[in-house]
């Protein structure tokens, strides 16, 4: 017999932890996707694709800024002591990924804006005509554009990695306690971003390239998920319990159907057919990838909070 009864019934803690609702998964998803967009846009700048006027590197920065701001607003909504949010910026805590994230976000904005200034949208130029002075200055310096590209790739990478590290440092939640989590979030961020660019790209070459890249990311994602689960299954009892939440437990239907099936396998098949010119490129596969990426964050955040050490009470 193994039985544990408790008199504690704290709100959002018992019977299982649910302190983080929809805001954190939405933030992690948008943060991851923006990270991917920064890397893709940065790569286009670095590889001199910006010379083509319909390059996605001209549309991505403004979209990134909007999505990141929506994500940060969701993060702000999640804070319970909102009036004290400025406390994040009166200190830097080296051991706290959340502190790292707060500062990374501050750095990310100017870097995306630098990318934006290479070719700002017309409405911005109309509103602030002085911008074109900066744009001309940057465009006279190809080296600078490449450096802006490198900075976007670097900070995009940091942003993508931190969203995973944030959770994986929490040993208290066995499901998150995997060193693969940051890889998973980074790759998922890249695949959702590639899917997004694939969908909106005006340049045919880019669309092909991104569809191919997305197939690569989705394939890596399957391996990363497999490695993460194998890692948990070969660890302690509580980690095995955590993996089983996804494999056969309460989260299994959503995980298998929406994250793995709809979010990875089916779009991978569709996109493989598309890049081999068997079928036309449609937005269906990219939309599936994007929704799958969002659901992945929901499943990981929710199931992770649900995973616990209680079984360690039983010897």
């Amino acid at each position: 017999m193994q039985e544990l009864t408790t008199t504690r019934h704290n709100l959002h803690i018992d019977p299982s932890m649910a302190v983080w609702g929809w805001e954190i998964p939405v933030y992690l998803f948008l943060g991851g996707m923006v990270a991917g967009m920064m890397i893709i846009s940065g790569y286009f700048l670095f590889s001199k694709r910006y010379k083509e006027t319909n390059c996605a590197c001209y549309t991505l920065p403004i979209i990134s800024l909007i999505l990141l701001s929506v994500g940060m607003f969701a993060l702000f909504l999640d804070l319970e002591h909102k009036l004290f949010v400025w406390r994040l910026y009166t200190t830097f805590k080296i051991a706290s990924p959340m502190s790292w994230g707060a500062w990374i976000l501050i750095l990310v904005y100017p870097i995306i804006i630098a990318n934006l200034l290479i070719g700002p949208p017309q409405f911005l130029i109309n509103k602030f005509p002085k911008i074109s002075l900066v744009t001309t200055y940057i465009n006279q310096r190809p080296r600078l554009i490449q450096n802006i590209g490198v900075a976007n790739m670097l900070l995009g990478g940091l942003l993508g990695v931190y969203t995973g590290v944030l959770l994986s440092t929490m040993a208290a939640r066995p499901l998150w306690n995997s060193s693969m989590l940051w890889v998973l979030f980074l790759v998922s961020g890249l695949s959702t971003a590639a899917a997004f660019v694939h969908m909106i790209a005006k340049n045919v070459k880019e669309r092909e390239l991104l569809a191919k890249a997305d197939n690569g990311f989705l394939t890596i994602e399957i391996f990363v998920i497999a490695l993460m689960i194998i890692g948990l299954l070969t660890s302690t009892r509580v980690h095995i319990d955590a993996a089983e939440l996804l494999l056969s437990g309460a989260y299994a239907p959503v995980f298998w159907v929406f994250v793995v099936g709809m979010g990875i396998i089916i779009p991978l098949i569709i996109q493989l057919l598309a890049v081999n010119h068997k079928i036309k490129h449609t937005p269906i596969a990219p939309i599936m990838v994007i929704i799958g990426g969002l659901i992945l964050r929901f499943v990981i955040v929710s199931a992770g909070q649900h995973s616990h050490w209680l079984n360690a009470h039983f010897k």
Partner: protein
Amino acid sequence: MARFGMVIDTKKCVGCMDCVVACKTENNVPEGYNRDWIVTVANGKFPDIHLEIQSQRCNHCDSTPCVSCCPTGASHVEEFGKIVLVTHNMCIGCKACVAACPYDARFVNPEGYADKCTFCIHRVEKSELPACVSVCPTHCMYFGDLDDPNSEVSKLIASRKNHTLIPEAGTSPRIYYLT
């Protein structure tokens, strides 16, 4: 400087919840929340079943994931007695510390900050015992300096069979249960 800890004799505890009520009263813990609680663990196979009643709270761990994850420094280890505390007006309510505690010992106070047991630091500073310890009718709880080998708590840990909670989580908790 002292390093406070607690020793709880599960052979004496009857699960009366006086400690729970005392804490709520002493610390004005909001309705619907608890900083300490009673857990009953039944372990084993009939007829060899072992039942243990534990009065649980924040373990004021030596290794504190709740402090290291805090982005603002609100969660901290107090110099006095190495008690783990939250400075309310530094806490943004991000709940990282709540998720980082393997004992689920924290909660979000309705006012927005992370809340948990303080070892009744306001009483201990006046050389009084924490409220829970002071009211226990079976005297099953002991509070003192774990760094002082002559303290009652250190002697009990040295002389009686004991365990901490979920040591596998690596937090080095400072509440010991005598069995």
